[in-house]
């Protein structure tokens, strides 16, 4: 059943060394900053992190990498103008990188949540990112075999949760949240607002509560979400 944590610290307390942690967000949008900071405080080590990027600036995921907590990162776009902490760790050989085309990253995470054992995709065929992977010609087109990426834990940011864990997101901050929630053994979600059950329109729930284990309210100054009651 859903746990409603009082603080981000409480929410991430059980994450263990060596965990695979799926972290939502694409750039700043949807990045669960407070949960990542709590994970940094919490001290878990030897983490495998799955995120689109490899940290920006000096905070959040970058700080986690800087503190030497991340053994390996699986991402599509590590090198950015402000990825200096990852860059340094990578050049020093202290972090392992698995570079994955962004669509394969999304589809592999989705496959883990959906119980798919693996799939063939044209993306990456004939490139160095397919080296060593099984390939197959399907209907005359080259395909690469890709495997699911499951997480022990997901750290996600959504806009609003109800008290059974149903989630809605906001604009392009949705990005990896719904597929990561489904692909993790335990999904920890920071939200701007928690509303009473029944106030989210069932037609508009994006992540059903079955995929959510822990929510914590972090007021980040977003506009109040629309709910069914207010709308009707």
């Amino acid at each position: 059943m859903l746990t409603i944590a009082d603080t981000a610290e409480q929410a991430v307390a059980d994450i263990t060394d060596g965990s695979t942690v799926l972290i939502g967000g694409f750039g700043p949008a949807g990045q669960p900053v407070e949960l990542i900071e709590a994970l940094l405080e919490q001290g878990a080590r030897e983490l495998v992190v799955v995120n689109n990027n490899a940290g920006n600036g000096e905070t959040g995921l970058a700080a986690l990498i800087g503190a030497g907590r991340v053994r390996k990162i699986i991402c599509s776009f590590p090198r950015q103008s402000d990825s200096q902490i990852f860059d340094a760790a990578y050049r020093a050989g202290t972090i392992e990188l698995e570079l994955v085309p962004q669509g394969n990253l999304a589809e592999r995470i989705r496959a883990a949540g959906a119980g798919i054992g693996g799939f063939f995709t044209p993306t990456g065929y004939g490139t160095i990112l397919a080296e060593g992977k099984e390939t197959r010609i399907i209907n005359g087109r080259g395909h690469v075999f890709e495997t699911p990426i499951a997480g022990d834990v997901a750290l996600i940011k959504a806009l609003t949760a109800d008290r059974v864990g149903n989630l809605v997101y906001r604009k392009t901050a949705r990005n990896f949240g719904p597929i990561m929630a489904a692909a993790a053994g335990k999904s920890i979600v920071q939200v701007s607002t928690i509303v009473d059950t029944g106030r989210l329109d069932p037609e508009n729930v994006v992540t059903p509560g079955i995929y959510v284990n822990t929510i914590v309210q972090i007021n980040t100054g977003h506009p109040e979400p629309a709910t069914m009651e207010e709308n009707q």
Partner: protein
Amino acid sequence: MTTTLSREQLARLVAGDIAPGSFVNLGIGQPTMVSNFLTPAQHVTLHTENGMLGMGPEAVGDQIDPDLINAGKIPVTELPGASYFHHADSFAIMRGGHLDVCVLGAFQVSTTGDLANWHTGAPDAIPAVGGAMDLATGAKDVYVMMSLFTRDGTAKLVPACTYPLTGVGCVTRVYTNEAVFLIDDDGVRVRETFGLTFEELAARMEIPLLRAG
């Protein structure tokens, strides 16, 4: 025309070539400029791979919303008829062949439409691929916008790419300041030239060129 095209002229040319009603993804950098020249009458819908159809122009002032950004992480706006979806659904749009056109930059394009645009192959470079391979492989038409020649005068439309590939046989058109090239099973055809003749162009390139129909 008697001169090569400016970046703006090239962007305008690409914009004008996009069929009315198309769904389009514009890559980061030069391709983004194409959006400045799309007309309302074209009814072109822009996709951004981080989860949106119906993307509007770059946000300014009060419009800036940290939850509404494009794939280049620039704040953008939302047009009427927009929709949001998660990353797997967004890439399903690209990978499932639903985009009519994507416009990408490139380091090199080969005569068979191979694309190299994500990695210089330098041994000390930190690679980053993003959505480039999905776009290259998934869109119905892949247009490349690039300068035709490197600083030392070598053509970037080549017999075979020497940089690491993004996709195999995926590019259908190459827009450059000197010429527009169409790639199909027959080879590379020069649709038009700017500021130089077909013969002058052919003399500067290593690949066989076909004349426009």
